C-alpha cells in the first residue's frame, strides 16, 4: 500500500490547538495518519489435526477445538 495524508491538525479535536489561529492554511502539512508505504505478507495454513487429518483423527474434542 502506498499513500499520503495531509491535514491542518492531527489532535486538535481534543487537547491540542492549531498552531496559527490566523492562518489555517499555514497549518497544512503531513498528517499523523500519513503512511507512505506498507508491505504485508500473511498466510493461513490448515493444521493437520482432527477428523480426517493426520493427528488426533478420532478425538472429538480435538476436532471441535482444532479441526
Amino acid at each position, binding site marked *: *500500500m*502506498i*499513500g*499520503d*495524508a*495531509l*491535514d*491542518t*491538525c492531527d489532535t*486538535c*479535536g*481534543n*487537547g*491540542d*490547538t*492549531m498552531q*496559527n*489561529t*490566523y492562518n*489555517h492554511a499555514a497549518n*497544512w502539512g503531513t*498528517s499523523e*495518519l500519513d503512511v507512505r*508505504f*506498507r*508491505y*504485508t*505478507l*500473511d*498466510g*493461513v*495454513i*490448515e493444521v493437520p489435526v482432527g477428523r480426517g487429518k493426520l493427528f488426533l483423527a478420532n478425538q472429538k474434542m480435538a476436532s471441535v477445538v482444532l479441526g
Partner: protein
Amino acid sequence: MADVGAGIMPRDEIITGLLDPKITAGMPGVSVQNFGGIGSEAAGNSPLSKTAGVFDVAENMIWTHSKHMVSFGGEIMWIRPNTQAASGGRGSLGFTGAFTELPNNRSATGEGLADMLLGVANSVSTGSVIHSEERGRYYAGYVNDQWTSMQNLTLNFGLRYEYLTPFRDTQNRMANFVMDPGPLYLQFVPAGDSRLPRALMYGDKTNYSPRVGMAYKVPHVQDLTIRSSFGIFFAQDQGSGVTSRLSSNPPFYNYGAISESSDQLNVSTGFTLSSSTVIPRPTPVSGSAFVLVPTFAGGLTSWPTHYKNGRVQQWSLSVQKKLPWDMLFETNYVGNHGVHLLAREQGNQPTVLNGATVQSRRPLAAVTQSPSTALASGMRLSTRVFRPNLKNVLPREFLFEIQSPMGMLST
C-alpha cells in the same frame, strides 16, 4: 503519595480551598522540580464518570422490482451523554526551586524540594469539577437504487440526509463566548438566554449525502471487474471532550478559579503555605448573573453559533482480475477529502512578538485575557491510498496475500 484518584486516599486539600468542595477523596496535585508528580492522579481528571446513553431506532426496507433493488430506511437516535469529571477541581501546587537559587548563579542552583520545605510554591491553581448532562437527537433517512442496467453493469444511486440537533444541557449549565461576526460578537451568552437557542448554536441542516457507484464486468476479458464509487459522509461532534464543550464555560466550570505564578525572584510573590492560608471559594451564581471580566482566569470556550458538520468526500476505483493458478489480483485507489472538520484553536492567540506583554498582545484583551479555546469547523484532511493486492483464493488450502507497492503518488 500517589493514587489514581479512585478514592483510595482520604480527602486532604493541604490548603483550605485547594480542592473543589465536590472532590470527596484524594489530594491536590503537587509538582516538585526533578521529582515525579505526587498527589491524586497527576493528570487531575479523576474520578471521571461518563455514560453514553444512546437509544437507537432504525428501520430498513428493500423493494425489488425488475432490474431495480431499492433500499430505503431511517434512523433516530436519542443521545444522552452524562459526564462528571474532577478536571480542574483538583488544584495544584508547583515548586520549581525559584526561591532557593543563589542570586549570582540562578541558572545552576535552586531546588524544588527545598522550596517545598520552605513552604513557598512558585505557582498555584484551582478550578472546579465539571458536570454535564447533554441531550441531542439524530435523524437520518436514505434511499438507494441498485440498478442492474445490463448483465455486466450495475449502477448505484443513493441519497442520505441526516440532522443532528445541537446538544443542550438538562440544567442549562452551558454558555457560549460568541466569536462569530455579528450582533453577538464577544458576548457571553448563557443557556436559556433568548438571544440564542437553548443549545447556544444552530444546527447544520445541509447534510445531504449523495452516493453513486458502479460495478462493470469487462466483456471479452475473462474475470476482469472494475468498480468505482463516490460519496459524501458527515461527522458528528461528540468527539470533543467535555473540557472542549460549552459545559466548560463559567460559571458552571472553574468559577472562582485562580492561576497564579510568582515572579521567580521574590519570595513575597510566591504562594506561602501555612495553616491559616485559605483560598476563597465564591458562592456559585447562575449563568445570567455571571459577568465576564477580562481577568477571569478559568478559560473560555467558544463554538460557532452556526455550526457546520464536518464532511468527507470519498471516491474509489478498483480493478479486480482473476489470474491463473487461482490467484486474484486487485488494486484499489481510495481518496478522501474532509472539510469543516472540528478543530480547537486559540481564539485569543497573542499576535507576533513585539516586546509587549503576552496579555497586551491578545486581540481580545479588553474583553478577556483568557486564551479562549475556540472550536472552529475549519480543519481539512486529505488522504490518498493506492493498494495493490495479490492473493490465492483456493479455499481450505494454504493461502497467502501480498500487498506490494506498484505505483506512485505525489503530494
